[in-house]
């Protein structure tokens, strides 16, 4: 394997400022209306912030909608359906929104009892949204060895950006794309994609990636000797 230096990899990071929309839902109809009408930045927040804020609870609950439907509305069936949504299969927030709407609408048609459930006062669903502030870090890698060092030192927010955010924002700066296109590490890139990142903590994701690269570098060393 040869390490080319076609395109250096710039590590970015991103931080979110959370906005309150002033809108809340006390039942499934109001939740559905909010999901349909609020901007995608709201879908993004409610399907992703758990990954950071409640990292210790990973792998569940995976998103705010599922948590609220299951624990507050006490609708276990629908809660489980929303919780089981495989977010890694979607490449845009619009697709995620449409799928959640579809699941809720089908569920409500099948089980009209869902419409009767109501949250106790004070436990309504509060819609929020996020603004992302993205900044380039000092970490740049030109080859796999440098990439490994950067990966060990960047913040979990940088890992978050490249694993989750860049894909949803239509950016081409995820790790696997760079490994495949700039370093011709297609097998390693495939291994990066094999793990569902939504089911990991960010620290365990880092360890997983570091482990894969260390093994790859060992293979390279062994091949040379």
């Amino acid at each position, binding site marked *: 394997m040869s390490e080319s230096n076609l395109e250096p990899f710039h590590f970015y990071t991103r931080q979110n*400022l959370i906005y*309150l929309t002033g809108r809340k839902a006390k039942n499934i109809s109001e939740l559905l209306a909010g999901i349909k009408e609020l901007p995608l930045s709201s879908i993004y927040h409610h399907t992703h912030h758990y990954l950071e804020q409640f990292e210790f609870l990973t792998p569940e609950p995976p998103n705010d909608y599922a948590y609220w439907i299951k624990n507050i509305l006490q609708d276990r069936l629908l809660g489980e359906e929303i919780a089981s949504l495989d977010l890694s299969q979607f490449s845009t927030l619009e697709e995620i929104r449409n799928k959640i709407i579809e699941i809720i609408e089908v569920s409500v048609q099948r089980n009209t009892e869902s419409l009767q459930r109501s949250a106790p006062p*004070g436990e309504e669903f509060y819609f929020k949204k*996020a603004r992302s*502030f993205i900044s380039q870090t000092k970490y740049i890698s030109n080859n796999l060895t440098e990439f490994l060092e950067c990966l060990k030192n960047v*913040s*979990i927010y940088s890992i978050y950006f490249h694993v989750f955010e860049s894909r949803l*924002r239509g950016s081409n700066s995820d790790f696997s794309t760079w490994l495949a296109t700039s370093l011709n590490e297609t097998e390693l890139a495939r291994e990066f994609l094999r793990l569902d990142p939504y089911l990991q903590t960010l620290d365990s994701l880092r360890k997983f990636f570091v482990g894969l690269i260390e093994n790859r570098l060992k293979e390279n060393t062994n091949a040379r000797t």
Partner: protein
Amino acid sequence: MPELKEYAKYVGSDIIDELELYAAKLKNVTVQNINSTAVGGGVAEILTNMIPLLQELGINAKWDVIKGGEKFFEITKKMHNALHGQQGNFSQEEIDNYLETNESNANQMNLHGDIIYIHDPQPCALIKRKQEIGRKWIWRCHIDFSRPDQFIWKFLKEYVEKYDVSVFSAPSFARELTIPQVLIAPSIDPLSDKNKNLPQETIDAVLESFKIDKNRPIVTQISRFDYLKDPVGVVKAFKQVRKSVDCQLVLAGGEATDDPEGGQVLAEVREVVENDPDIFLLLLPPSSNIEINALQRASTVVLQKSLREGFGLTVAEALWKAKPVIASAVGGIPLQVVHKYSGLLTHTIEGTSFAIKQLLQNQPYAKKLGENGREHIRKNFLITRHLRDYMLLFLSLIYPEGDVVYL
């Protein structure tokens, strides 16, 4: 004051690096904080800790305090209670006093910040100067806003909507406003006297000074003597527990210069305590941070049985010390206590009493709750996260457009 790098041992040097990365975009921006008291209460504490760190990051952070007479602070306390949901009847004279005090401060203060950051309702009407001097204005509400008295909220809203952005501590506080509302939870400082590690001798000495028995379980609530903290309810819950479990109760509260009600509440608590030798009512001066730290660390269980709560920083403090916490599901407390994972949430005196017994008698469970709580606070409620949110808030005023901002 601690330097930023000293926090790396708690949050990691990568987090500190990122703070510096974002701060670089705010070099020499002047942020002028204004509130109503320099000592006592959560706001003054947050500013005391935050200002030097913002300055170290290269942001020109300043802090000024408005001046007001005794009458003004009585009115703003009444306003505070009304915003917390108590019904308040305000006379025109009281409204006039509030506005005149704000007007007088607005005229005397040098409002020089690029960003003027107003904390809580007391100085809210300073915004009248915006039309004349411009600048970016932030209104930060630190109190529970879930069920405000409609009269006082309508009055205040007229001023709030003149700001560029408002900030609330919990999702349930969001209002229908024409300006953006940002969610920023407050934080604790792990290096402050109130939260730093203490040697066992210091903890023992503090217990000894208050004649508290270190060999028997200690149940503690730290908060000022205020109706909204329900100290009477705490004593009643404790008395139920004590029928079957030998333990002591410590109710320790500081005094804030903007709270004239403390003495009256303390008198009511004394009445319900009835000279019980196992209940310790400690009225502590604002400088008692080490004592509070020691009392929290010596506690077997920590309570926060508030009826309303802005955020409930005492919960974060106790969790940071890995203490099992029992608290009410009000204000920002549910953000800190995930029921049965990082503490227990209760709604009644009976429920609180049951939870105290449960934790006093099931120590492995209590220990696990405390450990989870500490990790949750480390990730989400330390001052470094708060600094980051403040910087993002300032950046949001400089970059007002778009869901995604490339700096």
